[in-house]
């Protein structure tokens, strides 16, 4: 939790009432007080990966809690958002520290990005990506 406060400015109150547990290289977050005593595949939503040197927040968790970030968060314009959604990297001049960042578009948290030396690398898992020619609607019409 300390990471979420120091890196994104998300207060630990945001996580009050949730249960966390570690399994392998992952931390999971769950809102169910006491699930029955059974053999589980998974409980709740994957929250962070503890594999690397720096713990990495998941896109799922950022979509749920990243909206409260006060730093290391960036709102993209339509063209940038398209690239991010396609899973691509892009040059971006922004007021961000190197490391994982919360990436949004039109007030929607899109997910996790990795920022380093002026480059934003999309960390969206494959099944959450979409090529811009497939996007169905007018959400990218014009500059908003």
């Amino acid at each position, binding site marked *: 939790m300390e990471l979420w406060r120091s890196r994104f400015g998300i207060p630990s109150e945001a996580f009050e009432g949730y249960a966390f547990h570690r399994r392998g290289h992952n931390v999971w977050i769950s809102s169910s007080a006491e*699930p*029955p005593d059974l053999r589980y*595949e998974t409980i709740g939503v994957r929250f962070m990966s503890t594999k690397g040197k720096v713990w990495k927040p998941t896109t799922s968790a950022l*979509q749920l809690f990243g909206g409260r970030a006060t730093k290391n968060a960036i709102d993209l314009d339509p063209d940038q958002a398209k690239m991010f959604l396609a899973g691509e990297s892009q040059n971006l001049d922004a007021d961000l520290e190197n490391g994982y960042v919360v990436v949004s578009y039109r007030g929607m948290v899109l997910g996790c990005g990795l920022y380093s030396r002026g480059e934003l690398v999309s960390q969206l898992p494959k099944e959450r990506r979409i090529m811009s020619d*497939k996007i169905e*609607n*007018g959400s990218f019409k014009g500059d908003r």
Partner: protein
Amino acid sequence: MVHLERYRDIVPDFESFVESIHRPLPVTVRINTLKTDRDDLLRRLSEEGVRYRFVYWNPLCLRIDLEKPGNLIECLMGYLHVQEEISMVSAVVLDPRPGESVLDLCAAPGSKTTQISQMMENRGSVVANEPAVNRIPSLRSNCERLGAMNVAVTRYDGRLFPRHRFDRVLIDAPCTGQGMARKDPSVLSRWCLKRSLGIQRLQQSLLRRGVELTRPGGTIVYSTCTFAPEENEAVVSTVLDRVWVETVSVPGLKNMPGLTRWDSDYGDELEGCARTGPLFTLRQEASSDYGDELEGCARYYPHQNDTGGFFVAKLIKK
């Protein structure tokens, strides 16, 4: 439409029923209140020029004017979930409340699991059970995308699910899927009585276990997306000693009552099915009495609400 002929006597306005099967299904989405709220979402869609219509019975369901709404950014981000309108009825009838303990015995890919989770506002606990290993990833990714944080996934054979007392249990059983014909016409030609009878035993065991896993006074919902009484009333009728049938009626949605009896010429219907195994003995059972209580179940036909076909029973554990 030879396979629908057997329903001529139970479906009102049979001709338009058959005709409706040939029309494409409206594309529908559910608004996921775990991640967005309705007004916000509607504003977003309007700004983007996405056209949609409301349905009378469910404020969170939209009929959307797009072929592939799955490619909407709102779907990718989990603000919307593509789900057939009539399949939203199971969770509505189950009526789970925040804080309760709920079991979804046949859960993948999790459309109803996540709907239950949102009705519970992520409070309490939902156990989503699915034995098929290859269907677990879709269940998990839907829960993650939609932010269903009170869901825990198990992988038991539903018939052998370990002993526990849940407040509510949903059994959305595997079935022959005749009600999906508007999406996939081949389900009708693939149907034969033998398939319904073959899956019936599994359905009965799943329902029986579901009833055992419910606390006295708790609610059990049994649903399928098929018309065959063999997979619906014939299954529910086997647990009547342990449950009361509560009448299903969803304001704004037309339905027909469940069947209390069913006469079928099984001799004829078994033509075309391989004649093997215990089916030969079924000839005597050609007429079945299911019991008057079964009237409380709901049959949804495609032409009555312009949806897919569906069956729902709501049971209270004695």
